[in-house]
C-alpha cells in the first residue's frame, strides 16, 4: 500500500516539475561557486585531506564531486558549507568571499546523507525550520511550506514525525528543507545512498528534474559513478584530496586524464594493461594491436586501457588482436559480459593494476557464448587509451585518439 502511494507521489513530483520548468529557467538568481587553492589538514594528520583544489562551479550548474571514500569530496563540500574551516585558500559564493563567513550567513542549503531531520518536529516544522529561525512570519512560512510540500508530494504527510516516514519520504523532506530557503546554492552529501536501488534511480530523476526547474547552483557529492555521470553537468573526480579531472560525463569516459579516472569512470571497468609500443604497434604478451596514431610517441613502455565496449569477438581472422578462453559469462539481458584471462606480459611493471589479470568484453546479447569457449578478440584501435606507466598520466596529448589525423609531428614535443 505504501509502495503504491509513494509511486503515485513521485508521479506527482514529476508532473509538477515538468509543469514549472519554463518558469524557472528565467530565474537568474543563482550564483556560482569559486574554489581557489583550497586545502584542508585535520589536526594531527600528516597529509592533506584536500590538497589545493581549484574548482569553478558556474551559476546554475550541477557539479558532482565523485571519488572513492576518503578522497576528500565530503570535506570539500563541508568547507563550501562552512561546516569545516579551510586550512588554506579561498571560497567564493555568488561573487562574495565567504572563506571566513559563518555557515549560517553563507546562504546555502545542504541535504545530508542521513537526512538529518529534526526528530522532535513534524514534517511541516522540519521544512519550515529555517524560515522560523530567520523569523519569517507565521502566515508566510505556512504558505511557503505548503508550496514546497506540494512540489515534493508531501502534502499528506505534513503532520507526521520523521520516525513515521519511509526512507524516500524522509529524503524528500530533507530536500524540502533545502528548497524552501531559496538559497544561492544547494550542497548535497550522498543524499541517495541510504535508499534502495529502485528508489535511488527514481529520486535521481526527481533531483535532476528539480534542478532543471529551480536552476539553483548545486554541488553534489557521491561515490557512485552512475549517479555522478547522470546527474552532473560536469563531474569532478577526486582522489586522495587531489582533483583529478573536471569534465562532462562524455569526456571523462572518452578522454580520462589518468589511469585513476579511466578506471573509476565507466561500468564495467576499463581493462588496463601494461604493454610496450614499438613502431606503432602495441604489444602485451600475446596481444598485438597496430596503433598507427601512436607512432608519434616512439618506442616506450605504456599502460593502455580498452573499455569493454571497445572490444568484440572477431568473426574474421584478420583483425584479431588477442586470443583467449572465456572464463565466465555474465548475461545482463541487453548485453553480455565475457571474462577472458588477460595477456600475461613478461615486462609487467604495473602489478597493482588489478583489472589486467582478466579482460572484460562487452558484447551484444544476440550471440550466445559459453565458458570454456575459445574466442579471438578484436580491439577498436580508436578506443585505446595510452598512459605513462610511471605517472599514470594520459599520453595521447590534447589530440583526440578517435581522430588520428589530428596528431601531427609537432605534438611529439
Amino acid at each position: 500500500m505504501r509502495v503504491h502511494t509513494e509511486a503515485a507521489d513521485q508521479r506527482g513530483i514529476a508532473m509538477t516539475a515538468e509543469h514549472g520548468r519554463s518558469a524557472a529557467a528565467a530565474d537568474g538568481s543563482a550564483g556560482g561557486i569559486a574554489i581557489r587553492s583550497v586545502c584542508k589538514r585535520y589536526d594531527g594528520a600528516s597529509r592533506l585531506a584536500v590538497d589545493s583544489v581549484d574548482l569553478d562551479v558556474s551559476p546554475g550548474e550541477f557539479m558532482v564531486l565523485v571519488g572513492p571514500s576518503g578522497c576528500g569530496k565530503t570535506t570539500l563540500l563541508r568547507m563550501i558549507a562552512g561546516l569545516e574551516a579551510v586550512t588554506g585558500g579561498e571560497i567564493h559564493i555568488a561573487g562574495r568571499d565567504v572563506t571566513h563567513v559563518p555557515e549560517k550567513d553563507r546562504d546555502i542549503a545542504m541535504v545530508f546523507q542521513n537526512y538529518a531531520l529534526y526528530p522532535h518536529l513534524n514534517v511541516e516544522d522540519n521544512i519550515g525550520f529555517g524560515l522560523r529561525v530567520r523569523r519569517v512570519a507565521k502566515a508566510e512560512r505556512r504558505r511557503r511550506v505548503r508550496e514546497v510540500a506540494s512540489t515534493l508530494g508531501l502534502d499528506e504527510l505534513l503532520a507526521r514525525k520523521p520516525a513515521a516516514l519511509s526512507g524516500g519520504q524522509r529524503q524528500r523532506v530533507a530536500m524540502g528543507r533545502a528548497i524552501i530557503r531559496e538559497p544561492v546554492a544547494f550542497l548535497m552529501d550522498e543524499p541517495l545512498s541510504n535508499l534502495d536501488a529502485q528508489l535511488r534511480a527514481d529520486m535521481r530523476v526527481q533531483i535532476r528534474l528539480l534542478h532543471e526547474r529551480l536552476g539553483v547552483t548545486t554541488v553534489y557529492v557521491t561515490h557512485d559513478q552512475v549517479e555522478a555521470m547522470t546527474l552532473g553537468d560536469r563531474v569532478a573526480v577526486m582522489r586522495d584530496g587531489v582533483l583529478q579531472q573536471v569534465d562532462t560525463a562524455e569526456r571523462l569516459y572518452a578522454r580520462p586524464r589518468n589511469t585513476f579516472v579511466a578506471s573509476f569512470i565507466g561500468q564495467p571497468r576499463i581493462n588496463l594493461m601494461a604493454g610496450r609500443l614499438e613502431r606503432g604497434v602495441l604489444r602485451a604478451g600475446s596481444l598485438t594491436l597496430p596503433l598507427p596514431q601512436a607512432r608519434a610517441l616512439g618506442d616506450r613502455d605504456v599502460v593502455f586501457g580498452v573499455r569493454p565496449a571497445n572490444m568484440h569477438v572477431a568473426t574474421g581472422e584478420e583483425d584479431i588482436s588477442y586470443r583467449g578462453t572465456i572464463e565466465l559469462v555474465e548475461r545482463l539481458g541487453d548485453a553480455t559480459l565475457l571474462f577472458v584471462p588477460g595477456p600475461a606480459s613478461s615486462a609487467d611493471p604495473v602489478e597493482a593494476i588489478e583489472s589486467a589479470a582478466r579482460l572484460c568484453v562487452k558484447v551484444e546479447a544476440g550471440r550466445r557464448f559459453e565458458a570454456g569457449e575459445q574466442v579471438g578478440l578484436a580491439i577498436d584501435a580508436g578506443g585505446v587509451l595510452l598512459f605513462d606507466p610511471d605517472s599514470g598520466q594520459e599520453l595521447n596529448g590534447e589530440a583526440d585518439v578517435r581522430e588520428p589525423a589530428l596528431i601531427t609531428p609537432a605534438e611529439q614535443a
Partner: protein
Amino acid sequence: MSSRRRWKTLLALVITLAYLFPVYWMVATSLKLPGDVQAVPPKWAPVPATTSSFSSVWHNPVVGEALRNSVVISLGVMVLTLLLAAPATYAIGRVRMRGSSSAVMLLLIAQLLPSIVLAAPLFVILRKLHLTNTLTGLILADTTLTLPFAVIILRPLIMSVPAELEDAARLDGCGGLGVLMRVMVPIVRPGLISTAAFSFLLGWGEFVFGLTINNDPSVQPATVALQSFIGQFGTAWGSLMAVATIISIPVALVFAIFQRWIVSGLTAGSVR
C-alpha cells in the same frame, strides 16, 4: 517449573516487604495513639488511629518553616542543575576540546566522594562568599552533588544525537545557543526530565550540607529539622514519624509521576 516460579515470587515478596517495613512502621507510628507507640508487645497496626500527631506538627512553626526551606532548596537545586547541566554536558559531550574525557572522569570521582568529605571545604568557601546560613549557599552546595550526576545522565544522550543534525541547524541559521535550545534540548528532553526529578529529590533529601553549612534553624531544611525533633520532642515518636511521613510524600509523588522518565534516563546510555 511452576513451583520454581512460585519460590521466586515468594522471595521477591519477602525482600520487598523487608524494604517496605520501615516505611510502614513510620506511617503506622505517626497514626498511633501516644500510649501505643512504645507498647510491649508492639502494636502492629495503628488501631485505633489518630491524626493528632499530624495536627500537632502541622501547627508547629518550626516544621512549617523547615518544609518551606526544603521546597525552596530543592526547586532551586533543580533549576540551577538544569541551567548548568545542559550547556555543560553539551560542551563536554560535543565540543571537541582537550581533556573533556578526563573532565568526565573527575566528575565521576567527585560524585563518589562522601558528601561529608566535601562539607568542610564547601563550608570554608561559602563562608568566604558570605553564603553560609543562606538558602542560596545550600542550593549551591547541593548542586555540586547533582551536577556530576546530571552530566553522567545527559552525556550519552547528547552524544547519541547525530552531528549532522547540528550541522543542519547551523545551516538553517542557528547559532550555538540556537542549536542547543532548538535542537539539542528538545531531543534530550526525557533525559532533562529525569535530571530534574533526580536533582529535586536529591535537594529534598540532602542532610549533611544542611546540617553543616547552615546552623541557623531558620534556614535549615526539613531533613535537619527532623533530626532536631528528637531532642525537642523527647519521646514524642508520633510527631517525629508524622514529619517524616510528610517529608516522604513529595518523594513518592515525584517518583510516581516521573517514574517513566527516571527509568529511561537511567538506562538510556546503556541500552542504545
